[in-house]
């Protein structure tokens, strides 16, 4: 579990071929039929990229670029109109519900909890995909849940009530539940939305550590250029439903390209560690 806090290029399996491809997207496309006739349908794709174990990949783009649509495709909620999306070699939209949940974990903005629930109860729910009907949680399930809590540094929160947690604590617990699923692919949908800068950095560092220390792939949907650049191995750049470029931050952050996508005057500066920095132009 090496720390990659300094932002140095992460320890990917150095020798090619030993890296396990967790997610493979081939020419996937989708069209959203709008319910309102006057609004145009939204099309996404075709998109192609791969994510390997221990990689932290960003799906980057401004609002309405198709990030959420792509996420729903990756999570298997919709079947792509064309192309394939595979996790560990299985076509995602054809997986049965529990099988899919054993492979893909999705972290979204959480809904309101109606009834009091303890942290460990919540995290233990992540083991649902592995439980037989009408059985209760096994010791093994409890072990995995406990480990997940430890991995996010929320061990001490175990016996607290969910509604007594702070925003950051809650987010860690939600992440722990996703980890308890023992996924091959961990997806996060705009996780830094309500966090301050300190929180954002802390989260990305954690995700980096998790990616480095485990064999799953982590994908983060975001529009935060700096965070993606600093922490991610690769970036998938989306714009108005089209995938413009896939590659390392250095490869993707080209000034002209970014200005067109984000519609803002920018400058891109390469730093010594190989990660680009984006600078806003005020006037």
């Amino acid at each position, binding site marked *: 579990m090496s720390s990659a806090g300094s932002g140095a290029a992460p320890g990917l399996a150095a020798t090619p071929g030993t890296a396990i491809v967790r997610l493979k997207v081939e020419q996937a496309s989708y069209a959203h039929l709008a319910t309102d006739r006057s609004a145009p349908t939204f099309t996404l794709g075709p998109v192609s990229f791969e994510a390997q174990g221990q990689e932290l990949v960003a799906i980057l783009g401004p609002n309405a670029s198709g990030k959420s649509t792509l996420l729903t495709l990756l999570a298997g909620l919709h079947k792509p109109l064309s192309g394939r999306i595979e996790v560990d070699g299985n076509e995602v939209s054809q997986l049965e519900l529990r099988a899919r949940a054993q492979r893909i974990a999705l972290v979204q903005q959480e809904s309101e909890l109606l009834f009091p629930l303890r942290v460990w109860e919540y995290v233990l729910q992540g083991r649902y995909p592995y439980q*037989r009907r*009408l*059985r*209760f949680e*096994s*010791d093994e399930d409890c072990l995995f849940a406990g480990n997940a809590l430890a991995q996010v540094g929320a061990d001490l929160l175990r016996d607290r009530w969910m509604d007594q947690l702070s925003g950051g604590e809650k987010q860690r617990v939600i992440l722990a539940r996703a980890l308890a699923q023992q996924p091959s692919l961990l997806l996060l949908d705009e996780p830094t939305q309500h966090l301050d800068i300190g929180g954002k950095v802390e989260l990305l560092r954690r995700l980096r550590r998790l990616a480095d220390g485990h064999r799953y792939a982590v994908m983060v949907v975001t529009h935060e250029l700096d965070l993606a650049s600093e922490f991610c191995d690769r970036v998938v750049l989306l714009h108005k439903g089209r995938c413009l470029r896939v590659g390392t931050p250095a490869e993707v952050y080209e000034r002209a390209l970014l200005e067109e996508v984000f519609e803002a005057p920018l400058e891109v500066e390469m730093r010594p560690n190989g990660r680009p920095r984006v600078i806003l132009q005020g006037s």
Partner: protein
Amino acid sequence: MKRAGWDNAIRITIILALFSSAAQASVDREPARKNNAQSPMTSRDRIVTDDVGRQVKMPAEVSRIVTLAPNLTEIVYALGLADKLAGDTNECDSPPAAKLKPHVGEPQNPSLEAIVALHPDLVLATTSINRVETADALERLGIAVYTSDGEAQTVLGILDSIARMADLMLAKTKGADLVAQMRRRLDELHTRLEDRPMVHVLFVVWLDPLTTIGQNTFIADALRWAGAESVVLSKQNWPQISIEEVVRLQPDYIVFAGTHQESGATELADLRARPVWRDLDAVQMGHVVNLSEEGIRPSPGLVDAIEQLAREVHPEVFTARNQDPIPTALQAREEAMLCVR
């Protein structure tokens, strides 16, 4: 390793199932009559059909009666069978002695256990107050229950009903006498009022909301016997009307039932204070009549009430000129008791 969870779930289900079968076994519908230590059916037992079509197996002797409605209690007393009345409801207040009998609860929901504890030979019910579920339950317990039709539409129909009940309770002669006496009084009244014009009245069941009686009720018929006609013509039994309608109809008299005779003055005073009401002709002239609540039940007391009403709305007929004074209600009742004995 976690078969334990499933096994225990099965165990729980079995326990629940056993529990439910024990409970449901206890609810088997065995006719209780098999275990009834009362006299087995003899040739002297009768099967009587009551007013709602139920076949009632009547015991040979009727020595313990339970009544489930005030008017039925009154009938039992009027037939001189008071000492056979084993119990009544807590709303049975007429005659006053009825209040001292053992109570079985309210007419709508009497306590079955209390009834069973009294060991009645016969339970009397009426469709006007009692529920069919009560009668069903009593039948299932092997207790003879006779339901009379409380939705009688005529006064004479009530007389018939009383006669039938008297038969039932093996008091045929007393019943015939009572009914004949009631009939006589009604006929006398009829003769006196023969050529008098009908007085228009509003019969008020309830002030708020303003509720009156429909054409098909026995009360409407009773009014006619008293020489009065309800101003409201309705097919519903208890129609609600608006005060505007009353203003339009301007009845000659307003009749209340349900207050005791002593507080009759208060009703008039109340109306004199109410807006709109106080401007009605009837109220201005003080033509407000109060009948006692017991009077408008389908029972012998109804005839008293009819006479009282007739006296109030046709006073001119009752001043003693060249006729013998008509006996008062009290005298009439005393006479009735003497006849019956």
